[in-house]
């Protein structure tokens, strides 16, 4: 069944003469448990789609349905964030500099109305491969990979079914990238998560995703599955060009 259905999505910034159309008529479906990739160069509107779904980009039109429930406008109901969570691109920017790991996770759990917060924080840290010794550290005491693990733990805290990944490894070292990608793959297998993953790196998407959409200038030019990607069987010239460039 379809977990995430995006139909004719337009997203724009600014008004009148300053209006910039970041996404134009994007449509795709992601099945439950599937991992779907969005690829394209910088500024092609990949991340904007994620921000529109979560309500961080306020001006959009079209229909977006999450698990059968259509979403509207700018504000999302509280329950929405129990289904959909997001991991941001830059772990150096997505953690509050004055909050310890314990505070970040504890506050998230508190906001979602969980009890036994202490036990849950400990379990989350174990789940993302960080030991208890990291619990009371501040972000500046963590490496980039460790920070991204904390960010993943935060996204997992409300026990969502859909995880939006906004280039989760592009700010990290190559060696750390592999660790984080493996962690994400394991988590998906364990929890049956649905991923919508944005990346400009075709090899990352090829490793992580079942299907992908290629974006250019805010439009989806082609949707293909990974087998076709591996066989270099893209039909649109721009996708072929991307494939050529990443070989």
């Amino acid at each position, binding site marked *: 069944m379809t977990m995430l259905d995006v139909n004719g999505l337009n997203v724009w910034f600014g008004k009148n003469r300053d209006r910039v159309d970041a996404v134009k008529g994007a449509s795709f479906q992601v099945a439950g448990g599937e991992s779907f990739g969005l690829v394209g160069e910088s500024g092609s509107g990949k991340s904007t789609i994620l921000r529109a779904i979560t309500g961080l980009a306020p001006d959009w039109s079209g229909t977006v349905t999450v698990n059968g429930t259509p979403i509207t406008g700018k504000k999302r109901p509280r329950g929405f964030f129990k289904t959909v969570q*997001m991991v941001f691109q830059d772990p150096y920017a997505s953690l*509050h500099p004055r*909050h310890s790991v314990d505070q970040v996770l504890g506050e998230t759990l508190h906001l979602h109305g969980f009890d036994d917060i202490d036990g849950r924080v400990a379990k989350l840290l174990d789940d993302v491969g960080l030991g208890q010794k990291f619990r*009371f550290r501040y972000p500046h*005491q963590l490496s980039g990979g460790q920070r991204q693990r904390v960010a993943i733990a935060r996204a997992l805290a409300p026990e969502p079914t859909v995880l939006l990944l906004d280039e989760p490894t592009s700010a990290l070292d190559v060696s750390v990238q592999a660790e984080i990608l493996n962690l994400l793959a394991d988590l998906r297998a364990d929890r049956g998560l649905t991923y919508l993953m944005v990346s400009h790196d075709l090899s990352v998407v090829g490793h992580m995703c079942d299907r992908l959409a290629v974006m250019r200038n805010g439009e989806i030019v082609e949707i293909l599955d990974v087998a076709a990607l591996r066989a270099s069987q893209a039909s649109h010239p721009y996708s072929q060009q991307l494939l050529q460039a990443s070989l």
Partner: protein
Amino acid sequence: MSDTQTLRQWLLTETPTSRRHAKLSALYQGWLSFRSNTMAMVGLGILIALVLIAFAAPLLAPHDPFSQDLGNRLAPLGTEGHVFGTDSLGRDILSRLIYGARITLYIVALVALIAPVAGLLVGTVSGYVGGWADVVLMRITDIFLAFPRLVLALAFVAALGAGIENAVLAISLTAWPPYARIARAETLTIRSSDYISAIKLQGAGPIRIITKHIWPLCISSLIVRVTLDMAGIILAAAGLGFLGLGAQPPSPEWGAMISEGRRFILDHWWVATVPGLAIFTVSLAFNLLGDGLRDVLDPKAGE
């Protein structure tokens, strides 16, 4: 291994074991970097001394600051029993200085409680909410900023009546706009950052975001600004005292003491100079402390 060394190691650990431990460790590291700044430590030392003097004023003062002795008026520096001499009514200047420290501290503490808090509230709400709230609050701030500080304070005191409380109120009313501006500027950069987006995705409302996520980041730069402004606040209070609109005689407020000494400044210079030096010392101490605190607290400089 001695006890103090293990405590030091406990405080400097990279792997804190509890919430309290992590907080103490962060505090200790801040203290270490503050301690390495000699000038800031000098400033802190002067201010601690000022607080102690203010508390122990009755024990330290050699004379009653209000008792007059017209036979011994305008005694010069180093007169027996009057180290800093006496003023036009024969009151001991040293004793008056010591009691005046209380008034100075009182002014500083009250202004430091009122102005930055008001500025923080206005600035963060204005910056985070944006739109009409921002326009209205910032134009009000602009109006207050457009007046010269002392003139506006004068107008307030004139309207409210002379006296130390009204002087504090007037200074606070003129001191908050710069804090509101700083807090708003900080909020504008913070509110579009990923960690605010991330907490929004957990369903946090604006009140929680402003108080728990934006305030902690604004407060450090405000503290620095407050300590740097303290010198100006002391001077403004002294200025109001000098003009006769702050503390009223016979209160030993330092600015009022200068005002009294002004009449004799050519023949009996110490009557005005000694309280002037006291104001200078305390203002300098606050500036030094503020400089040191900026190095420790400013999030942009560190990390």
